[in-house]
């Protein structure tokens, strides 16, 4: 092939060569890093939460009537609310819970095995206080031990020993953090002062806590479910698992249902997905912003290449005419410009790969983004290469229409 002559001709006009190279290199660096970042964010957003996320509805009620100051009233109302929710058509199951998973707001405490040395650091333990039917409502999968039983929910007598201890269920991540050698079921765990001792009765495969975006608690996978009556005069919250497809109609119905059961409270209904989207909102906006930038950047670069290549075609009209007059076919001309373009883009990509790593290094240092994966680099390089070729097609075709007799004319 005529690579040598093409390259030498290219070097005859260095500014065009360098401009395209620079543009391709910069664009590749930016696009590859943006794609890396947005796919990472997306993956983070879409990762398995262990919950039956699309079918879960959250009902938050906040009392303002003084009647709610009585513990017995709240307790009885909670049972009544749950009974009515569970008998509503379209509801698979319902539970009471004091905080909402995936919402950014929750409670955490610390636990360590009861026989751990006192100076050892405990495990940070996000927890949810839950009513019965918790596992069925959340849709989490029990992998060891047992579900909560009726007796687990009884309040212990005030002032009795280990009054606040309960039979609890852990996620696998929590069990692994406390008992790296396995065998969590049946073990006792306590808080740092030893005043509360819980017994692990079951382990579920996976469930995200309130902060899955944080590195805290194994990226949000450490959870302790503690049985009890989670409602209080401050706030009573429920989660409802709907049958597939029934969530929209439930969404509109439940507020009236709750107020019909008991007025004197404000009822707020949202899907779990809404809580999650809210918690991730800045990341979701970033995905949109990055996507727009990537698209715009590719368009700008493509236009730039079109412009520079057209200009070079115009400049070399006479040479093209001469080649045609000397016997070059139209295909030869198109091929010439495409190969030339392919060479420039190729060199740009090589420089761009170096730049990509440089930019990624800077971003990792400055803004704590993930290290780039080489697959994105290959993808980005292919996208750039394709953009370069496509951008050169139109000017190259125009070049091939130059008539041979141009060579014999002066301008």
């Amino acid at each position, binding site marked *: 092939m005529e690579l040598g002559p093409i390259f030498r001709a290219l070097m005859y006009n260095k*500014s*065009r060569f360098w*401009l*395209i190279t*620079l*543009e391709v290199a*910069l*664009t590749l*660096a*930016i696009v590859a890093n*943006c794609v890396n*970042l947005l796919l990472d964010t997306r993956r983070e957003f879409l990762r398995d939460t262990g919950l039956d996320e699309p079918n879960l509805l959250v009902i938050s009620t*906040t*009392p*303002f*009537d*003084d009647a709610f100051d009585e513990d017995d009233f709240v307790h009885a109302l909670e049972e009544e609310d749950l009974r009515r929710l569970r008998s509503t058509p379209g509801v698979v199951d319902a539970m009471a819970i004091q905080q909402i998973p995936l919402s950014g*707001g929750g409670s955490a405490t*610390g636990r360590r095995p009861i026989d751990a040395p006192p*100076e050892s*650091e405990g495990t940070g333990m996000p927890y949810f206080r839950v009513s019965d039917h918790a596992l069925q409502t959340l849709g989490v999968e029990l992998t060891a031990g047992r579900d909560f039983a009726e007796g687990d929910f009884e309040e212990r007598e005030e002032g009795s020993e280990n009054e606040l201890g309960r039979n609890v269920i852990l996620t696998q991540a929590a069990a692994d953090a406390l008992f790296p050698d396995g065998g969590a079921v049946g073990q006792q765990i306590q*808080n*740092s*002062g030893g*005043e*509360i001792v819980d017994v692990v009765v079951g382990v579920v495969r996976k469930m995200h806590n309130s902060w899955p975006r944080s590195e805290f608690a194994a990226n949000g996978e450490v959870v302790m479910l503690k049985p009890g009556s989670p409602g209080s005069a*401050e*706030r009573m919250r429920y989660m409802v698992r709907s049958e597939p497809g029934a969530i929209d109609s439930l969404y509109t119905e439940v507020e009236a249902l709750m107020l019909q059961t008991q007025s004197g409270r*404000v009822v707020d209904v949202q899907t779990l997905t809404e809580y999650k989207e809210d918690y991730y*909102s*800045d*990341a*979701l*906006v*970033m995905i*949109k*912003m*990055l996507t727009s*930038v990537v698209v*715009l*950047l590719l368009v*700008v*670069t493509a*236009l*730039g290449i079109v*412009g*520079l290549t*057209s*200009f070079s075609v*115009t*400049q070399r009209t006479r040479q093209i005419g001469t080649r045609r007059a000397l016997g070059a076919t139209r295909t030869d001309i198109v091929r010439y410009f495409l190969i030339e373009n392919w060479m420039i883009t190729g060199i740009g990509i090589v420089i761009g790969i170096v730049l990509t790593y440089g*930019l990624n290094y*800077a*971003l990792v240092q*400055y*803004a*704590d*983004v993930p290290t780039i994966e080489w697959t994105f680099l290959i993808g980005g390089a292919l996208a750039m290469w394709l953009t370069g070729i496509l951008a050169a097609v139109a000017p190259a075709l125009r070049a091939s229409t130059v008539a041979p007799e141009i060579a014999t004319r*002066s*301008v």
Partner: protein
Amino acid sequence: MLAYQIRIAFKSLRRNPLQSGLLIAGVALGIAISTSFVTTYYMLSGDPIPEKSDRLFHVAVDSWDPDNGWDSDHPEYAPNQLTYTDVRGLMQSDLPTYQSAAFKAAMTVQPEAENEKPYREIVRMAFSDFFPMFNVPFQYGTGWSRSADEGPDPVVVIDAETNRKLFGGEDSVGRTLRLDNRDYTVVGVLDEWRPTIHFYDVNNNPFEEPEAIYLPFNFVEPLELQSSGNDSGWKFYAGNEFQDFLQSESVWLQLWVQLDDRRQQEEYKSFLDAYVMEQKKAGRFQRPLNNRIYPVMEWLEREEVTPDQAKVMLIIGALFLIVCSVNLIGILLGKFLARAPEVGVRRALGASRTSVFMQHLVECELIGALGGALGLGLSVLVLRVINRWFDNQFQFQLDLTMVLAATLLALAAGFIAGVYPSWRICRVAPATYLKIQ
């Protein structure tokens, strides 16, 4: 001369409207994207109260677990909030110009009108100094007095939005607001107030709007209010009563003080140390002495308020403008060199290299200026889209600094992109073109 060059430049742009349009659009796009991204960063990281941020201090004392520090990655950090006991003790000081402990609580607003549903609202519990300390603007009335703090008197300050919702936006000072079954008298209505960062409490969402309702802090005990923000504890406490919680080692309150000069700041630091030494005698504060007062910007930095995404956006925005500039160089080069025959004739007729160079540079600056103006307009739209994406949680908008910066940036881009092509064209040798003609 300049006027003449600008006229010629306009003429040249009009000769090839498509190409000129592309050039201007390129600059505009680069300016629009970079300006709006930089604005985003600038608003998420900028000083929320520039007039006095170096005189306002967040108070931190290390009351945390003797065995494990507050932040294992930063052993020098004291907890980010205070216990109720310490707030009570530290508020005794008469050193600060202003001081206020505060926290947010959720309460139910019960509108007077029968047909309006009660709703939940976030209430900030604070001392009277909160308003003058943070330069909070008032539309009607004022904050409450220091004596109302002591009562506590049933007084309330509401924001403009709440005033519109409940009282139709009129002067509601003296009217009654019902919260959680108790009546409070409105003493002040805030004017529009939206610091870009919720700097006085960055515990949950550091960019949330200021609270809608403000009550005297001392209602915390009679109303048994708990924080709707974060509270963290390390020490188990017995008992279920509210007093047990208040006396516990849970940290859940923010304390801000205004200290106007070095002397005042030093004195306040000595006061903090003396307070903690006194507490140590009572068996609390078993960690090494570690008291600090953080000016606003240092506090925001410690709490890592600026999201990483905003930093990434800043870099990407700047790089985008660079790519647009490189693009500009290419198109300008083509445009100018295509004009070489004409320039050759002008050179032969006596135009100096300098005047050819200047002529073309002016044309580039004209493109930069037009593109910059268009880009500024576009960036208003882009910011609007970004605001919508954020559900208007933020109000990103251009301010004078950003407009000036964008204008300079556009002219700089025009200049940087224009120098090389202008230099190339002024080097044209007249003879070549005269021969062909």
